[in-house]
């Protein structure tokens, strides 16, 4: 299949239409949605497997041989995409339809159908407007896949904005009592950030893209372009010193990079732009939260690793400390805030802010291992936080409350739930051997070995404090909710539903598998990081 | 041959009458009819200039305009019918549920 990525994006879109049209009853809607989501998951899993060098007859016949394509035939090295598509869109103004999958996008994109499928299964008993609910989940899946696959700034931006629409409705229709406030806040907050990002895209387009395009493609008359691969390649050659013409000068890089940075860290989110997140999460339905935290936040991180590190190496060398400071502050600050939360879901939401701090810090190290760790942390956080948000949904479902002070002794009445909660919490606090330990460890290794941090190395102690505080709030929460005697009103709480158990089982197995075999994910990520310009390879 | 100015004056009169109807009538059907008058004024202008400058494209636009006017009337009437069914009136003063 030559257009495998297009098909990949079309599957959930067709699923969205099919669910909307066919889903007269709840049963039909959820089955149609599940089938399409599973289809995308299967296809994307095949793609991911090619990154491990696993080629099976099935994969060969479905995907064709792995392409390992260079974006332009005239290039000799650099960024390679396992799957790559290019078509003219509005070529006169440099807008093209470019899709590509490499070691950065594939693992993150894989989370999308996985978590969508599990969200559909988790909402197996959704009775409130099921047709729209499942259809919107698929629409969200489509736009998220598009964000990770798009390699043209304009296409990227369109998908980036499309994501907001289904999420706005998911929060606004199926949310909690304060859903209108939360949905509006989410939409406006992230939309403003997107606008500033759009300004940067245009600034990049008008000031520099023509020269860069000419230098990289070797065509003197090449006009301005939105093509990301051109910038990536130009930055790479610039750092290698083989770019004939000059790359974007630092004075231009810095303001453009700051605009992008703002767009990304609001999405991520990072202190002090994180307050939309707890509100959105508290109000969002479980499936929405799972996708919001599991994949949507990763768009910000993806942008940091693709755009900031890939295209603005000079500016990053100057401004790494901004990212580092934001990351470190987010980690410590969120950990302390978590300690005081009484709503389980709010606690988990704040913990996401803290864990995303590792992503920013990893990028700021400008070392190979730190960057790998940052990307890996996004993947791990996607798995873990999905479990945690599902848990918050389950406990609300079973007991009618998420207030930690009202929960007690759940081990007795909800043993399966308690087991999953423990696994999720321990994975989230970075217990060695489970998945997020590795990514946090890699980020710390990067921070410790980063030449940029020389002289600031003592600062590593601050995020280490956050590890202790993180452990504290999780263990404290477990002590209060799981242990002790069961209060009267919880005695009849039911344990997990079968479909819930299934969703948890998949994620828990993945958490353990990635914990035992982290190289399976780090391998593809490493392929991408190896081509990034301007990183220091430590020890 | 009728001078162009006469036709333009007629068109302007038609337009003004139609505009008055749109602004002043309370019954939605009357408003719609007035709207048709406004469109016809525009079509008349097209035809007038077309014959004045011997250019057939004005007449093409006139035909398009008639088609739009027909569609416009059909949709407008459908909407008013639907409003009448749900609200029991087509009085423009009472139909104010667009206001929030």
């Amino acid at each position: 299949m030559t257009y495998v990525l297009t098909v990949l994006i079309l599957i959930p879109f067709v699923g969205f239409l099919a669910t909307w049209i066919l889903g007269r009853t709840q049963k039909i809607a959820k089955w149609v949605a599940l089938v399409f989501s599973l289809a995308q998951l299967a296809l994307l899993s095949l793609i991911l497997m090619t990154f491990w060098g696993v080629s099976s007859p099935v994969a060969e016949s479905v995907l064709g041989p792995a392409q390992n394509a260079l974006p332009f035939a005239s290039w000799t090295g650099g960024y390679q995409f396992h799957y790559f598509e290019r078509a003219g869109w509005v070529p006169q103004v440099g807008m093209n339809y470019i899709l590509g999958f490499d070691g950065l996008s594939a693992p993150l994109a894989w989370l999308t159908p996985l978590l969508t499928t599990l969200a559909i299964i988790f909402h197996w008993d959704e009775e409130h407007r099921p047709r729209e609910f499942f259809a919107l989940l698929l629409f969200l899946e489509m736009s998220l896949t598009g964000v990770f696959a798009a390699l043209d700034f304009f296409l990227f931006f369109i998908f980036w904005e499309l994501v907001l629409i289904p999420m706005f409705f998911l929060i606004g229709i199926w949310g909690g009592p304060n859903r209108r406030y939360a949905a509006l806040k989410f939409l406006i907050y992230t939309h403003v950030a997107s606008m500033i990002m759009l300004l940067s895209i245009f600034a990049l387009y008008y000031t520099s893209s023509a020269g860069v395009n000419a230098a990289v493609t070797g065509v003197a008359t090449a006009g301005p372009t939105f093509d990301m691969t051109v910038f990536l390649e130009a930055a790479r050659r610039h750092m290698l010193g083989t770019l004939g013409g000059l790359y974007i000068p630092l004075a231009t890089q810095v303001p453009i990079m700051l605009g992008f940075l703002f767009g990304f860290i609001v999405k991520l989110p990072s202190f002090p732009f994180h307050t939309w997140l707890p509100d959105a999460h508290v109000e969002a339905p479980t499936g929405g939260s799972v996708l919001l935290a599991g994949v949507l936040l990763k768009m910000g991180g993806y942008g940091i690793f693709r755009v900031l590190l890939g295209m603005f190496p000079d500016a990053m060398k100057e401004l790494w400390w901004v990212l580092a400071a934001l990351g470190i502050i987010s980690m410590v600050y969120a950990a302390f805030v978590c300690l005081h939360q009484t709503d389980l879901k709010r606690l988990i939401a704040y913990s996401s802010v803290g864990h995303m701090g590792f992503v920013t810090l990893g990028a700021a190290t400008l070392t190979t291992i730190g960057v790998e760790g940052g990307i890996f942390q996004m993947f791990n956080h996607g798995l873990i936080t999905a479990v945690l948000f599902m848990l918050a949904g389950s406990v609300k479902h079973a007991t009618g409350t998420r207030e930690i002070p009202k929960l007690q002794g759940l081990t007795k009445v909800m043993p399966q739930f308690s087991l999953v909660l423990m696994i999720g919490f321990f994975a989230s606090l970075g217990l060695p051997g489970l998945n997020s330990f590795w990514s946090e460890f890699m980020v710390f290794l990067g921070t410790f070995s980063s030449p940029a941090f020389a002289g600031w190395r003592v600062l590593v102690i601050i995020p280490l404090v956050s590890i202790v505080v993180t452990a504290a709030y999780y263990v404290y929460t477990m002590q209060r909710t799981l242990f002790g005697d069961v209060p009267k009103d919880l005695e009849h709480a039911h344990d997990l539903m079968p479909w819930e158990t299934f969703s948890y089982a998949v994620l828990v197995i993945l958490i353990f598998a990635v914990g035992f075999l982290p190289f399976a994910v780090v391998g593809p990520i490493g392929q991408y990081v190896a081509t990034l310009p301007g990183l220091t390879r430590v020890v | 041959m009728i001078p162009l100015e006469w036709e333009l004056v007629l068109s302007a009169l038609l337009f003004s009458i139609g505009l008055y109807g749109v602004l002043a009538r309370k019954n939605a059907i009357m408003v719609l009819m007035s709207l048709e008058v406004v469109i016809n004024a525009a079509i008349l202008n097209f035809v007038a200039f077309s014959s004045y400058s011997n250019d057939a494209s004005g007449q093409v636009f006139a035909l398009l305009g008639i088609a739009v006017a027909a569609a416009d009337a059909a949709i407008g009437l459908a909407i008013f019918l639907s409003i009448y069914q749900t609200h029991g009136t087509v009085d423009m003063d009472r139909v104010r549920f667009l206001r929030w």
Partner: protein
Amino acid sequence: MSAASLLLLPGYTFVWVILIAPLIAFLLSALVGRRTVEGGAPIAIGGISISLLLSLYLFIQVMLGGGLGGNFNPVFLDGYVWLPGFPAGSGFNNIVIELYIDDLSALMLVLVSFLCFLIFVYSIGYMHHEEGKPRYYAEVSLFSAGMLGTVSASNFLQLLVFWEIMGLCSYLLIGFWYHKPEAAKAAKKAFMVTRVGDVLFLVGVLIIWNQFGTLNFYGDATHLGIASQVGKLSPELLNLIPLLLFGGAVGKSAQFPLHAWLPDAMEGPTTVSALIHAATMVKAGVYLTARAFIFLVPMPYQGLAVTPPWTAILVIAGIGGFTTLFAATMAVVNFDIKRVLAFSTISQLAYMFLGLGVGAFVMATELSSGTAYANLDSAGYSAAIYHLYNHAFFKALLFLTAGSVIHAVGTNDMRQMGGLRKHMPITSITMLFGCLALAGIVPFSGFFSKGEILSVAFEAGTINSVYMVFWLLGTVTAFLTAFYAFRLWLMTFHGEYRGQGHPHESPRSMTFPLIILGAFTLVSGLSAYAMGGFGNFIFVTGTHAEYALPLIGVPLSDYGLEAISLGAALAGLALAWLVYETKRIPAERFTRSPTGAFLHKMLTHRYWIDDVYDAFGARVYVGFAKAMDWFDRRVVDGIVNAVGRGGLAAAAGSDYFDRHVVDGAVNLVSKEAIRSGMRLRQRQTGQVQSYAWVVVFGIVVLVALIFGIGLYLRLWGG
């Protein structure tokens, strides 16, 4: 594949099974445990039996392969790559899972699997009436896998991973009776306090990786190792790294100032206290510090001797020396049988750290005075590991006997025990053995190792007088140890029974491990003779360092030192006897005649020497112990609590800040937008015609403007 055919595999491949067997037992007990008898006990015991047999086989192999003569070449067992180095596939700087077999790890494997086996067997009887047995057996199986992995890891990171698995199991098992709030609290405390140590450990690992690009303790032809490159560290880092590793050890082994969790951890089942909080997990800190000897006594680098990290050595010895006495004093005033043993464990672990510290000091001194690295006197190191080995047996025994007693009388309070000797003869005798070993009475095991530690401490003291203080602390503790050990035994088994019900001897599955461990209180001490000296068996450098047999062939001064420590122990024993045994003689019998009354008075007061002792004991000594206890609860624990409260306050503050300031700014912007919107929406009447009026008006204005401007330009614009 059966265990027998595994042995046919080349090399040491079977060692993996030692780790994997309990891991499979963990999965099986968790999944199908409730279907088997005793809720998974046969599975857990089966798994650990395989580990035990294979560990013994490995041990024999290592011994035959030259372990006794010091010629055993350590073996690496490559596993798989956890994290690929950079770039992927280059094989550069991979972080791998692999096992490292040398004398120390072979010994630790046997020790751990043997104790796990005995305690699992004991659990059959002890946990018989409990609910949640599958959970229990699954967790202890996972724990044993964690401990076996810790002692066989080839590198610091793998050690940390398994170390945390143990910590997790410790957390789960302390909270085994999760419905008890104290248990839940104790579990949390244990996890949090050890976590503080773990973070220090993690920082140490980060620095090591940063400096060496490898985490292996030792290298060989195909593996990069740290030991041979330690000399390239700066002096500051050379001090810092072992201190950070020691930080982890302090948390795990409950040393001052991170000791507060261990007494509380006694909320778990007694078997757990015996296994995790006495015999194995808390020893991991000692094991780690022993592995940190590659930093404490650095190998020559590029042919030049490296300055040893004196500060780190002093801190380790100092913490050890101080904690011995500190913990022992607290043990003296406690009435909870398990807490006495917990304080005792802290104190005994501190002995091991003291031994490692002074041992490192002696070796480092020799090293800097020009002795060749291979000929260093590793007596302190050996003595500490020897004490670890002995203590594992006798402290497990003490806890298990305590468990047997608790099982019989249903309380932990020693004031409600007494006279159990008659009802529980086997428990009574085996516990006596344990107490004798703990107290360090010849020929029980504690005597040999504790005496060695103290004699090395004395030797260090002759070089640097600071270390003499540690020797003194250790000797005083030896006295206290004997005292509280026998106070415990006498209060439990002697005198009259003060509790309710009719206690009876425990079932055979419980007494059987007691008898075996009781025998080991003798065997483990004397085994050094069979080995030709314990140090012959466990050594730190690549070649064998001289270390004589206990009591035989040592310098004369050593006899004097041994006598001092034995004397201290005996004094403690005697004191316990005086205080807790004889004062229970009923007074009335002697008070019938005036002469008798006087005699009685004199005798009961033992010529009032007892009163002097008592006064001293009750006022000064118990007072001091109480003060220590108070210090422990109020100051040390108080700081922990205050930090916790401070953390909560900071959390509340940042929460307030977040809600009102950060979020407030966001809300202000949105409110302003809404307010202007409210004003503008007045204009939205919803009447299409009024909108149309506005449009027409606008057009008129626009047209007027255009004409106006045109007119203006025509008239004045030229």
